[in-house]
Each structure stands twice: as C-alpha cells, then as structure tokens.
C-alpha cells in the first residue's frame, strides 16, 4: 500500500527529531540565545547534505521512484509574504518552541498541551485563508 512508505518515513522523522531534541522548547530558546551550536549544527548539516543531494540529482538527472525526471519546483515569487509571514512564524516558533512538524511529534511524546498550539495553528491557517487576498505578497 503506497501510504505505508510515507507512514514509515514519518516514524523515522519523528524519532530523529525527538532524539535530536529539535522538538524541545528549551533547545529553540537556547538557539535564539546563541548559547549552543546544537540547533545550528542540525540545520547546517541538513542543509549541507540536502544541497549536496539536490545538486547530485540535478547533475546526474536522477529519476524518481516512478521513473520520472525529478523536478524540484521553485518557490513562488514574492517578497512581503516571505518576510512578514516569516517574522510572524518566528515569533510563534520562539514563543512555543515548535513548528508544524514538532507539533505532531510532541503529541506523540505525550505533551498534550500541544493540542492547544495545534488548535491555534489550524485557526491561524484558516484566518490566513480568509484574509489572504487583502495581504501584500
């Protein structure tokens, strides 16, 4: 069943992020205080190998699982959306120490209070949908 592989990838992702403590409010706070290299090391290493992997894919025109050429879509053009959206996201990230992926992972670890963060995140997404045509992008 095709969904199984994504479910397994998710389990792997959840384990790695939990063991790396990237889901920890404490680690995010420490990161924004520049008091440890840990989180920067994680993101930097992920970027290093991610960049390497994508460059290899492009150079050797590697095909995906279904035999199609891999095309990584460019992000939509814009500016205000990235800087304003980014800042708002960053404020939330530092306030509750998590981002969308960790929200679900933390529920798994038994941090039930995250359910309120999830509720807020869903509401925030919904509000964006209602307001988006009135916002600069």
């Amino acid at each position: 069943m095709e969904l199984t592989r994504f479910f397994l990838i998710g389990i792997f992702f959840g384990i790695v992020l939990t063991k790396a403590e990237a889901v920890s409010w404490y680690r995010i706070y420490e990161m924004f205080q520049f008091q440890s290299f840990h989180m920067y090391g994680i993101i930097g290493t992920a970027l290093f190998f991610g960049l390497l992997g994508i460059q290899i894919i492009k150079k050797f025109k590697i095909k995906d699982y279904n035999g199609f050429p891999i095309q990584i879509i460019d992000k939509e053009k814009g500016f205000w959306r990235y800087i304003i959206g980014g800042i708002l996201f960053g404020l939330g990230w530092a306030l509750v120490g998590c981002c969308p992926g960790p929200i679900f992972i933390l529920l798994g670890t038994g941090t039930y209070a995250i359910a309120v963060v999830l509720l807020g995140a869903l509401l925030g997404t919904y509000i964006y949908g209602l307001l988006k045509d009135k916002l600069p992008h």
Partner: protein
Amino acid sequence: MEVILGTWHWAISGFLISIVMLVLIYFGKSFGMSSNLRTMCSMAGAAKFSDFFKLDWREQKWSLAIVLGAFVGGFIAFHFLSNVTGVNLNPETIQNLSLLHIDAPNGKLMPDAIFSIATLQSPKGFAILLTGGLLIGFGSRYAGGCTSGHAISGLSNLQFPSLVAVIGFFIGGLVMAHFILPYIF
C-alpha cells in the same frame, strides 16, 4: 545503547533529516510540514469560507501519513529510546530561564511553566499556547512554508524566497526570545 538513549549528535541528526528530504524527493514528493495544516482545514470544511481551502485533500494523503508517522515516531522515541540524560543545555541558558521562572529541563523536552496541564488550564497559559499556534499557523501559510519547507528544502534548493523567509523566522524568533518573553514570564 547509551548512544541511542541520550541526545543524538547534531551532525547525525542533520544528516538523517536531509535523508528524509531526499527520500521524499525520490518518491516524487516534497518535504514540508505546514501544508498539512491547510489540508486539515480543508478536511474540516473550510472551503465553504475560502477558496484557499478548495483542494482535494485525498491528494495529500501521503503527507497526512507522514504526520501520523511523526506522531508515532515521537511516541516510540519518548517511551523506548530515551532516558533522562537529555536536553543538556548551556548552564547560562538554564540561569536565564530561572530568571523567567521557567523550570530547568532535568531531562524533559518541554518546560512545565508553559506545557503542563496546570498551565494550560490557566487563562494566561492557554493564551500563550493558542497565540503561539496562531502565529505559527498564520505565519507559515503566509510565508508558504516553515522550517522544513524553507530552511531545509528551500535553502537546499538555493531558493531566494526561502532565504528571505528564514531571515524572517530569525528576526521574529530573536524579537520574541529577547524582548517579549521577558515581559510575559
């Protein structure tokens, strides 16, 4: 075994995260977690109120499967792959936190001051959690991605919009951590 039960080294963790992204690319997908919030709103019927949610959530089942997996992964890691030796913060950080009346980790991932059931039952505690969520949800959709979509996937693909987004993430995070948290706690 101790190596597995303690904090995983950042280089190994970062490498494994890049593998997640590359494996997803290999399966013809992309690595991005915030889109699931939009999918969930669509599933809940938000399309009635905004075209933004007019999407076929069935096409996103693969991503929802990742979310479910992540939940299970968190469960497994917490219950079977951990001991109390983790979250070894810089001692200065722990001192800063005590000034904010935030409890030291002692092996916990999250502070009780923000995430305990008692805190969430207080109006202020609930408001902090909800507001954090609102900012994350609104911000990530407005920016079209979060740390996975922009900081990892976007920057790996040398996307300038992702650099702008990540700069935004840091501006917001630094402002909150340095100027706003001291007022809240």
